[in-house]
């Protein structure tokens, strides 16, 4: 107990000791400049200390405090212990807005980054909150919606980055969240905003306490709910945008700080709102202190945001088992839509026919130097094998992702379940990156092996974790997202290294069919058929599972093994498809929903329908990548995201 209480002061002392160590290595105490500073009379090490190390130490404290407060505010108002600027898509929105502004309207950024960052943050947060409101702010659904919106924003930002080489370096450093400072202006700006923010938060603490009793009680106590929620969220988003604009993406401090405050015994909203900024300041200072000391000893200078991201994944995993007591016992409900089709076989048949016609059209139609048109028959021998290979591979990947999505949505009874949520894509990305960096000139097979191994490792970890916690579906999804967050943190650090090889990884991450050989395409198609067969054999499990574990057990289902087998199948399908499509795609989310809205309800119908729809969607996506900006192939993952993202919103908007 006393040890828990001592954590915060001890960590603060450690952070200060690390800072002091770095500062004294830079300049012995005797030579530290006296106040007031005269820049012209100072030596370079003195400037480095007083305009580099000192503001850096201060900004770590302030930014940590701002993020901690933002996280605490979000958690209080949403009554969701998983809410923070990272999980609500706030930070990703700022990133997207800043990337877009850097590329298209650099003039907007001349005076300050803050308005642009705030606009982006507010946009994504409002989107997530709006979507969450439709589901009564159920924590897991809100978090998943937030992370998906974040994924989408990041995907678009990646594609924009890829399309421009110009200001790339600043984007890369920005993504990584570097705390390096060259003057005190950032510190003053943060401080000037943080002080009124803390006061405002203190004022909001009482009504937030009333809110924690529930909406009805709060209303009875005279709290104006809409106004309170709006004010709190605006404050939290502004704090997060401020940090984004000054320093870049620093993930998960807003999640960790309130968690630490809670575990230190902060019970009332006021205690949490006041303790969380302190905890955040200590956490970020400690992380930055470690990095400064490492760099000072001659180690690599990593951006701080990459390190906090590394801590974030495990932290989410640690928080999950402790969530139950804090989450309202509301079931995260699925959508019930259109009635069952009377002749599902016929529906699937027509779907297949439409897809076949689509394939023919996509093979022949295209764009050349002279514009749109059909491929002349003389060029068939050259063009059709190319296009057929790309199409086959993409459609197989689409079918695989769709089946994985269908299985996951049934398994977890959660309409937001999607393969990218499983963390398999993140693991595969890490494996791919490892091969790119370890081998001098890796071939396709080596890359495929690397990605498959990475995906399998992530899946094994996930399965082990999930088995220990009885595979509770919502937790499984969040654990997958946590693995994904970990992977993206490592990838951000890789990008920040500005190695030429990072481009290869970046290119793959947005997806491309350019490297597919006919053999790979056929193998992928074979895999898709194989997995479909296996899943059809397991259709009975899928029928029973959404009814709940009690029913399953009563019917004699080997619950744990059935879940494990299904998760592994979904993971395998995702990993294989990820190799081709890259880590982000919404096909796995969309296809099962489309199938359901066509009335394909029984598992075997839903599986077949999803697979066909997924294949068709991916086929359309390849066509888009090939033609929209000819001769520059667009990333396949980006096209899939652009087709899929609007669907995500429609889906979440429907009650």
């Amino acid at each position, binding site marked *: 107990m006393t040890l828990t209480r001592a954590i915060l002061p001890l960590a603060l002392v450690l952070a200060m000791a690390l800072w002091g160590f770095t500062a004294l290595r830079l300049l012995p105490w005797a030579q530290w400049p006296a106040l007031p500073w005269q820049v012209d009379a100072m030596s370079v090490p003195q400037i*480095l200390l007083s305009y580099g190390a000192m503001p850096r130490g201060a900004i770590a404290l302030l930014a940590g405090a701002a993020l901690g407060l933002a996280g605490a505010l979000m958690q209080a108002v949403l009554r969701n212990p998983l809410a923070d600027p990272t999980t609500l898509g706030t930070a990703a929105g700022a990133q997207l807005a800043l990337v877009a502004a850097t590329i298209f309207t650099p003039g907007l950024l001349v005076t300050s980054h803050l308005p642009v960052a705030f606009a982006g943050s507010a946009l994504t947060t409002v989107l997530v909150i709006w979507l969450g409101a439709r589901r009564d702010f159920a924590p897991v659904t809100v978090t998943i919606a937030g992370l998906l919106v974040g994924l989408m924003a990041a995907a678009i930002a990646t594609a924009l980055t890829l399309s421009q080489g110009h200001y790339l370096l600043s984007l*890369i450093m920005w993504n990584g969240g570097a705390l390096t400072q060259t003057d005190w202006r950032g510190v003053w700006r943060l401080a000037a905003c943080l002080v009124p923010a803390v006061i405002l938060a203190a004022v909001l603490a009482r009504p937030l306490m009333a809110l924690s009793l529930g909406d009805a009680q709060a209303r009875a106590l005279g709290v104006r709910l809409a106004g309170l929620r709006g004010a709190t969220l605006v404050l939290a988003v502004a704090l997060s945008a401020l940090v984004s604009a000054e320093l870049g993406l620093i993930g998960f401090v807003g999640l960790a700080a309130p968690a630490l405050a809670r575990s230190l015994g902060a019970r009332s909203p006021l205690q949490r709102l006041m303790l969380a900024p302190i905890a955040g300041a200590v956490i970020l200072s400690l992380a930055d202190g470690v990095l400064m000391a490492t760099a000072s000893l001659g180690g690599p200078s990593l951006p701080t945001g990459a390190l906090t991201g590394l801590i974030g994944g495990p932290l989410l995993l640690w928080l999950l088992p402790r969530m139950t007591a804090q989450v309202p016992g509301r079931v995260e409900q699925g959508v019930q839509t259109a009635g069952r089709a009377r002749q599902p076989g016929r529906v699937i048949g027509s779907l297949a026919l439409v897809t076949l016609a689509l394939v023919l059209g996509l093979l022949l139609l295209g764009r050349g130097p002279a514009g749109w048109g059909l491929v002349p028959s003389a060029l068939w021998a050259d063009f059709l094998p190319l296009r057929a290979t790309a199409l086959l591979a993409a459609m197989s990947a689409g079918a695989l992702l769709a089946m994985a999505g269908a299985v996951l949505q049934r398994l977890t009874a959660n309409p937001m379940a999607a393969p990218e949520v499983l963390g398999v894509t993140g693991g595969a990305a890490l494996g791919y990156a490892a091969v790119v960096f370890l081998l001098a000139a890796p071939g396709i097979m080596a890359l495929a092996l690397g990605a498959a191994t990475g995906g399998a490792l992530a899946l094994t970890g996930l399965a082990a974790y999930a088995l220990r916690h009885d595979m509770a579906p919502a937790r499984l999804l969040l654990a997958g997202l946590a693995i994904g967050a970990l992977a993206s943190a490592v990838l951000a650090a890789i990008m920040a290294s500005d190695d030429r090889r990072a481009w290869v990884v970046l290119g793959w991450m947005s997806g491309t069919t350019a490297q597919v050989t006919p053999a790979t395409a056929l193998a992928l198609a074979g895999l898709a058929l194989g997995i479909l067969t296996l899943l059809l054999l397991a259709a009975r499990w899928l029928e029973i599972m959404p009814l709940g574990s009690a029913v399953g057990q009563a019917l004699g289902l080997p619950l744990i093994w059935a879940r494990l087998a299904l998760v592994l199948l979904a993971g395998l399908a995702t990993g294989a498809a990820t190799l081709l499509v890259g880590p982000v795609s919404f096909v796995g989310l969309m296809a099962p929903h489309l199938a359901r809205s066509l009335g394909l309800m029984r598992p075997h119908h839903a599986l077949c329908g999803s697979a066909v729809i997924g294949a068709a969607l991916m086929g359309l996506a390849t066509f888009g990548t090939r033609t929209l900006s000819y001769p520059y192939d667009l990333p396949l993952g980006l096209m899939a995201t652009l087709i899929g993202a609007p669907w995500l919103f429609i889906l979440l908007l429907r009650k």
Partner: protein
Amino acid sequence: MVTAGPQGLTRRACLVAAAMAVVTGWAPRVRAQGVAPRVAAIDWAMAETALALDHAPAAIAELLRFRPLAPLPPAPATVDLGLRGAPNIEALSLVAPDVILSSNYYAFIEDRLATLAPVFSRTIYVPREAPFPRVMTLLAELAEVLGRPADGLRAQEAAHVRLDGLARRLSGHADRPFLLIEIGDARHVRIFGDDSLFGGTLTAMGLRNAWSEGTRFAFAAPVPLERLAAFPDARLILLGEVPPHVTRALRDAALWNALPPVRHGRLHRLPALNGFGGMPTALRFADALTGALAT
């Protein structure tokens, strides 16, 4: 005069000719053998080297961004092949090249390229290894491939002469080391080490690169601005444009303004150059450097 006999036209060229009758604009020109080989360049250093040999590639990847950076202008009719890392195979096969120029960067698509035409690939940019000698050798190697070995030697000779001439004009500046940087944001720079084309050119001109440890990072590393303070004597050479918000931030930054080279006016600006270029970029860099220091 070479007539198009049975061996004179490739199968692909025949097909393409037929195609042209069906849809104009989709098909490339028909070409007899014996004429200079048609070249498609995926790698920019290769494209520049081909241009230096006066052999304009029929197609270049990422032409949109290559054009403004290229020291020697590509032909107006050059075909754009799309992204360097993922060239458009359809566009490439329409070009029907006799040889495709690539490098170690694109090793992962080489098998794919080889199905269309023979690939000539060389390792040019590798971390911790000097690209300058490779770029020089490339002139001769590519000339060999294009069937004009004499031109390669002539181009090498011309490059040496040009560099030596510029080096003589800069010999008065050899007293201080040079720091070649590119501004990333207000807090980070890229520093070009000896394993960059610019660092190598500097050394070839008898000047000193202050950034000897560039080998510890990749050849162009994002380095915190404060690291520049370790080189108070250096001349600071700023490559490329600086984004507007960074210009503003640097104007007020205490550390930047306190850097001895900035304070004492030893900061020189060069235009944006192709960091992964060939000998033409090296010469243009040398030219621009001489011009900047002379004023």
